Each structure stands twice: as structure tokens, then as C-alpha cells.
């Protein structure tokens, strides 16, 4: 997924979008802080989807509920 913006959604409703490096780091920090678990790079990328798809048709990604 290099070069594209990706999105990761946690089951708790938390969501983050951005470049791969930032999303991996933010997701690890979220996991440790709120769920006492740390996903690896591979696990974060397995959960990630391209941000355009995550926003859904008709959604404005700039108005999304990102809480990163």
C-alpha cells in the first residue's frame, strides 16, 4: 500500500487515516494505550483499507470521524 492513504478502523469505533507509516505508528499507539495490545506492522496493514474505499460512496473523507 506504499504511497496511498490508508484507513484503519478499530472495533471500538476509533479510526485513523493517512500515509502507511503514520497509520501503523498511530494504530500501535492506540492499541497499547486503550486496549493493552500492540499490533505488528503486518497486522495493521491486514486491517487497513484504501481511504477512498473506507470513506464510502458520497462521503467526504475530509469530514470523516477520524480521531487519530
Amino acid at each position, binding site marked *: 500500500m506504499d504511497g496511498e492513504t490508508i484507513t484503519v478502523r478499530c*472495533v471500538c469505533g476509533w479510526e485513523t487515516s493517512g500515509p502507511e*507509516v503514520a497509520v501503523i505508528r498511530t494504530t500501535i499507539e492506540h492499541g497499547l494505550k486503550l*486496549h*493493552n*495490545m500492540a499490533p*505488528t*506492522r*503486518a497486522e495493521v496493514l491486514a486491517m487497513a483499507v484504501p481511504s477512498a474505499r473506507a470513506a464510502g460512496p458520497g462521503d467526504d473523507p475530509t469530514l470523516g470521524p477520524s480521531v487519530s
Partner: protein
Amino acid sequence: MTHRYTLLVGGTVIPGGDEPDAAAIAWAEDTVIALGAELDVRAISRGDSHLFDLGGAFVVPIAPEGDAKWPVAATLEVGERADLAVLDRDPRMARADDGRDPRPRTVAIVRGGRVLAGALPGGSTNRHEHDPSEPAFDVEGPVQAEVFVVWLAGDHLELTGPCGPAPWIIELGVTDHPVEVVTRIVRDAIGRPLLVHSTSWRRDRDALILSFVAVIDAALVGPMASAPIGRIDLARGEASAAPRAVATDQVVEHGLRHLAWLAQDDPVVAHELPAAWHLALAEYMPEPFRNLG
């Protein structure tokens, strides 16, 4: 999701780039998950982590393959691969004028989170070699805490939390003390709770679920989403069997009944809960801790 974190503390981590030195680093499988002050990195330990005391040794990034040289363009950062070398002294201070070999001695080489040469100091070799028969994900039957953060909104109780009114799931290591972990994480994420109490347990989601009620002051709610708590009948089991299905609302209902029981039975709980809480809990039928499923 691996629970096998490796923590190196008590040394100097030179992350590279323009980043300042750190005192500790941790990784899970091949990924750096924490880098910073020793207390901060120790705080992520789940009890089943592998902890190594660097004893003043230095940690530097190395390239993911090839000769282990430093300095390199690679950096040690959260989310990046754990490719690093442990050196017996500061490579930035390597000078020959003290009569010693100017090159630091390599204590261990770690690539992708695995010790490929040498040994991590302060503990066993602990190579973390991958056994092909070992699954990549933990299937040991995880224990999870399901936390319901409750506050008094005027005259009624509401659910809130970092996940809003939804259950807040926290994984627990096999040797973690559940109450200590839940209290620490609630405190770090929200603020000091008035009370944290485990109210029931059940098996669900392929895990053992310990339900907790965390009582917080209204001042801590801030921007977190919140929703009033409704009343619902409890899930009831048979004489020797748990209920077949338990809804989240029923877990909350039982949690508050348990809290109502503690408010009457436990002097500490009775003291910690403000008077208005006692009034709010009065409408809940007291009930002790039990298995919900």
C-alpha cells in the same frame, strides 16, 4: 496478535535521524512498538513480556540485511522493523586515545525482532526463533476485560469511555492482575477513576471476559460520547448452566446491581461513592458477582 513483547531497558537507544536518545525500546514480533523513557516502555509490559536490562549498553539501528554497520540511514521508530544492534559502549564516542579498541563490541544483533547473533544482555538468550509449528497469532485463550465506564449525569447514570458508550475491550496478559491493568489504563486514558470493580465473568468471543464497572467523576467525561443507561431484565441461567446468550445491556444491568450490592456491603465502596451515587443505585436490586455465561 502476539503478546510476546521484548523490552530492553536501562541503556541508551540511539534512534537515528534527528531523534533524541531514549532509555528503552520494545518490540512485538518484527515491529517496534515503544521507544522512550524507561517508565513509559515498562508500562506496556503485559507480565508475559521478556524484559532485558541493558546495563548501560547502547542500541543502534542497523539495515534489515547485509553487514551490521552503524551509522545507517535506517531509524528506530514505533511501527518500523526491529532491526538493531546492542553495543557495549557509545559508538559516537569511539576514539582510540584511551588506549582501548575504539570500536564498540557488538553484544547482539536483532533483525525483524529476532536475535540472530550474540545474546541480549541481562537475561537468557531468548532468541524468539520462529517455530514453524507455532501460530503467528496467540490462540492460548486470551483473557479480556470489558470495561463499562459509568458516570452520574445529574440524576441518572450514563455510559461513556474512549469507545463512547460501547464496551471498552482491554486485553490481559496471562500473568497480569486484571484490576491493576484496568485501573492503570482507565487512569491513563481518562483520568483517575473513583472506583474500578469486576462485576461478572463469562465466556464469549473465544475468550474469558471479565466485566468491569469503572466509575468516573462527571468532570472527566469531556468530549467522550455518552448515552443514558436503560433498564433491562437480567439473563438468567439454569441451576447448573449459564445463560445461553447475554446482551451487553444485561451485563451493564448486572454490573450496576453488583455495584448497588457493594455500596451496601463494602465499606470502601460505600465511602468512595458520593451520596448522589447511592441514590442513583438505590433503584438497582443488589446482586453479588456471578458468572453470566
